[in-house]
């Protein structure tokens, strides 16, 4: 018997009686100010947060944080003068110093930002391969908890890849000492727009 | 209300003073308490060693001995836990069900049944409280440190707070296991002793003169290490503190 059939028939023979599937409520955060909590949790996790009044200031914020002569890749439609996506070949993006992308949803309770391949110009590796990552998100898109986030996300439609990013890549595999910058981005700068 | 006193086997033989204190305390609080002399063991040692089936006889004997009492009180959360949670291998007759439901740890009995709010006890010492695991996580005599946002009431704390002159020390690890674990203590002696040493160190370094607990078995293990290493700290069952008159 092919393994699929044998596995399924073993399950049928061995599974317990039907256990009801619970309806999980949308737990909300108790924090009154989601934006403050979001910033606080991000900073606790080693990210930097920069709030701006106007999205025209994004470019300026980036240049204050990173030297302009380094290779930058942006998938933001509004960011002029910075290289965009030119090929889908992932290895091409090795050597990217800074990647600038948009976050769709920010989660206050854990500082995670949701992004799909649509915001990555279909270059899924971009936020991981870059030495530094900048994510731009509107404070209107901050929700309290993961329950609220998944409620908004619903089921995937177009994107074949989506990821919550909650900070720079990190590890504590050597004696539990926290090291920021393991295999992925060495820093995360979150730019909060109105 | 007729109370049957159950004294774990090793307490009967090695720690009679803790059993006497339990008995006297119950008398002092006006209980009609009796020690049925035919009692043996709750069966836990064999069952925890994997021989539940061999324990059946002692389970049935326990039920026969104690079914006539309104409450069965034991100064041992561990034995009580065993009766309440592991006697399910017996046919659940009315007698079995009654005995299981009415078997209480001394601290539960004092607070939940007698509902005492004060005690005529005096014990002017610095005390470290060891939360014995079966009482803690099995009988929920306190909220374990793993659980969140539940009221952290601890029956042993509540009772000790009624004792005049007693100061409790704050521990680094308020409810880590002492390493006794019945058969574990002889099957895994290296870790068992290491766990005991670490517990004692926590209490001793916080200035405790005495370690107390609701289970004498934990204390027997700790005392064995304390004595071997000549550490100036004592162990005493909580019943002895609750029955203490100040000396």
């Amino acid at each position, binding site marked *: 018997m092919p393994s699929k059939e044998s596995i399924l028939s073993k399950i049928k023979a061995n*599974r317990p009686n039907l256990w009801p599937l619970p309806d999980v409520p949308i737990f909300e955060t108790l924090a009154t100010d989601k934006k403050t909590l979001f910033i606080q949790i991000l900073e606790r996790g080693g990210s930097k947060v920069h709030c701006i009044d106007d999205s025209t200031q994004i470019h300026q914020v980036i240049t204050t944080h990173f030297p302009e002569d380094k290779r930058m890749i942006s998938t933001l439609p509004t960011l002029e003068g910075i290289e965009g996506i030119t090929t889908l070949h992932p290895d091409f993006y090795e050597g990217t110093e800074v990647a600038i992308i948009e976050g769709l949803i920010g989660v206050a309770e854990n500082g995670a930002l949701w992004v799909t391949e649509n915001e990555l110009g279909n270059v899924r590796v971009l936020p991981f391969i870059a030495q530094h990552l900048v994510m731009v998100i509107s404070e209107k898109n901050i929700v309290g908890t993961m329950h609220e986030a998944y409620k908004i996300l619903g089921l995937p439609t177009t994107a074949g890849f989506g990821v*919550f990013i909650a900070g720079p890549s990190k590890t504590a595999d050597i004696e539990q000492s926290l090291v920021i910058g393991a295999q992925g981005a060495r820093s995360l700068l979150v730019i909060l727009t109105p | 209300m007729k109370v049957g006193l159950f004294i774990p086997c090793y307490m009967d033989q*090695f720690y009679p003073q803790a059993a*006497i204190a339990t008995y006297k305390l119950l008398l002092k609080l006006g209980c009609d308490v009796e020690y049925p002399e035919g009692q043996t063991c709750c069966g836990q040692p064999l069952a925890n060693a994997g021989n539940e089936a061999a324990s059946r006889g002692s389970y049935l004997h326990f039920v026969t001995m104690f079914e006539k009492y309104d409450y069965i009180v034991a100064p041992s959360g561990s034995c009580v836990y065993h009766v309440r949670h592991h006697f399910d291998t017996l046919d659940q007759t009315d007698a079995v069900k009654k005995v299981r439901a009415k078997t209480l740890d001394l601290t539960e009995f004092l607070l939940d049944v007698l509902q005492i709010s004060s005690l005529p006890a005096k014990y002017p010492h610095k005390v470290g409280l060891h939360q014995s695991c079966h009482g803690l996580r099995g009988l929920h005599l306190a909220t374990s440190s793993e659980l*969140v946002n539940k009221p952290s009431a601890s029956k042993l704390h509540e009772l000790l707070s009624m004792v005049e002159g007693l100061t409790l020390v704050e521990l680094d690890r308020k409810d880590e296991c002492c390493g006794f674990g019945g058969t574990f203590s002889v099957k895994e002696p290296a870790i068992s002793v290491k766990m005991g040493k670490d517990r004692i160190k926590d209490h001793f370094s916080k200035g405790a003169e005495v370690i107390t607990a609701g289970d004498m078995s934990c204390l027997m293990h700790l005392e064995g290490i304390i004595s071997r290493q000549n550490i100036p700290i004592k162990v005493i069952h909580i019943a002895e503190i609750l029955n203490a008159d100040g000396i």
Partner: protein
Amino acid sequence: MMPHAQKAAIFNKDEARTDWHDASLWMVRKKRDFAVSEIPEWEFLREFASDIKMHTLSKLDDYLEAFEKAAIQNGAIVHWAADAKEHNDIVLSILNKHQAKKMVKSKSMLTEECHLNEFLELHNIEVIDSDLGERIIQMLDEPPSHIVLPAIHLKKEEIGELFHRELHTEKGATDPQYLTEAARHHLREKFHTAQVALTGVNFGIAETGEVVVCTNEGNADMGVHLTPVQIHSMGIEKLIPRRSDLAVFTRLLARSATGQPVTVFTSHHRNPKPAGEMHIILVDNGRTEQLGKPDFRSSLKCIRCGACMNTCPIYRRSGGHSYETTIPGPIGSILTPGIDLKKHGQLPFASTLCGSCTDVCPVKIDIHTQLYKWRQIVSEAGLPEGGNKTMMSIMGSGLASPSFFHRLGNIGRKLLRIFPGKERFLSFTVWTKDRDLPKAPVESFREWYAKQAKDAK
């Protein structure tokens, strides 16, 4: 196989190191306590997670079929593996199809369980574990000692020495930042040159056919997105019904594992990248059998957070290798006896049944109750760990007989009065190696009570 107790005794010979190991893991437990204290609904989340998992197990066949259907629709290729061998053969066949000789792998306890690395190396495939901790132990040719912190048993000096040898870092360098940087450069090259990437799976979503992979380093994503072929090896119990259920599990997982509010990366893979290929291997390897054991099936709820290891006072003082299983610690001790009772039957005894594992478990597996139940099975099977059955049965009768019981107790106490102190006799030798026996009193409670009753008359 050396008994756990013996391995633990060896581990404990270096007391300073035992203290260090214990303190490292206790720190993780403390971080977990702080992280969960910020979530008022924590206990409800545990309950929901447990119910969602139990529900999934009760309809696992339906959900697996739904998952497969959705995944195929997404463009993934789905394989079914009855056991470790079939799993490994499938991986090899995918590698062969692409003439691949180099594979990067992110952390996957399942492939450890299947001994995939050894198998592929026999077939001349270079496998590179890309999680830093995994890479360290791979270089040392050791198994992980913890499911989340695979190199937690190693000191930075030892890692520094290893990296000096393997990655040519400076001799004597031990700074974790410096060593991590060296590994980063080493692994970057591997990500770019491997043809295939394999990951484990934290959650499979039945309704969408997605696989969700959680990491902190970003290594799984580096591999998956840089190589043309991605493989996701997934135990069949990793399934959850709905995408929204991820809210519950992502809230529980990292907080329980490391005390972080969420892993840095929670990646949802639904379809292959442009011109890429995506394989999902659904693996049984004993899981359906565990499902058939009513007392033990709830162990399949496990989400591999490792919290039971961090909290376990025995694990912390004996190290993961003392268990000689892929998954060590309390959860391993209830999962592995079902796979090989003779080999792992001793592990349910490597516990005081303190219950901390049960209370810390984010999916409410009653681990210590299952340890107790495994002990009964081990003993029933007549394995030595369960004790001599005839002796136990005689003891049992003795314990049910008041006269025998009282005589035995009195003899014990009186012997202790004759030989007080530290001498070694009877079966007390083990006890008395580092512990004294209690001082035997003149009379037992029973004798005292009888006198009282007599005096009262």
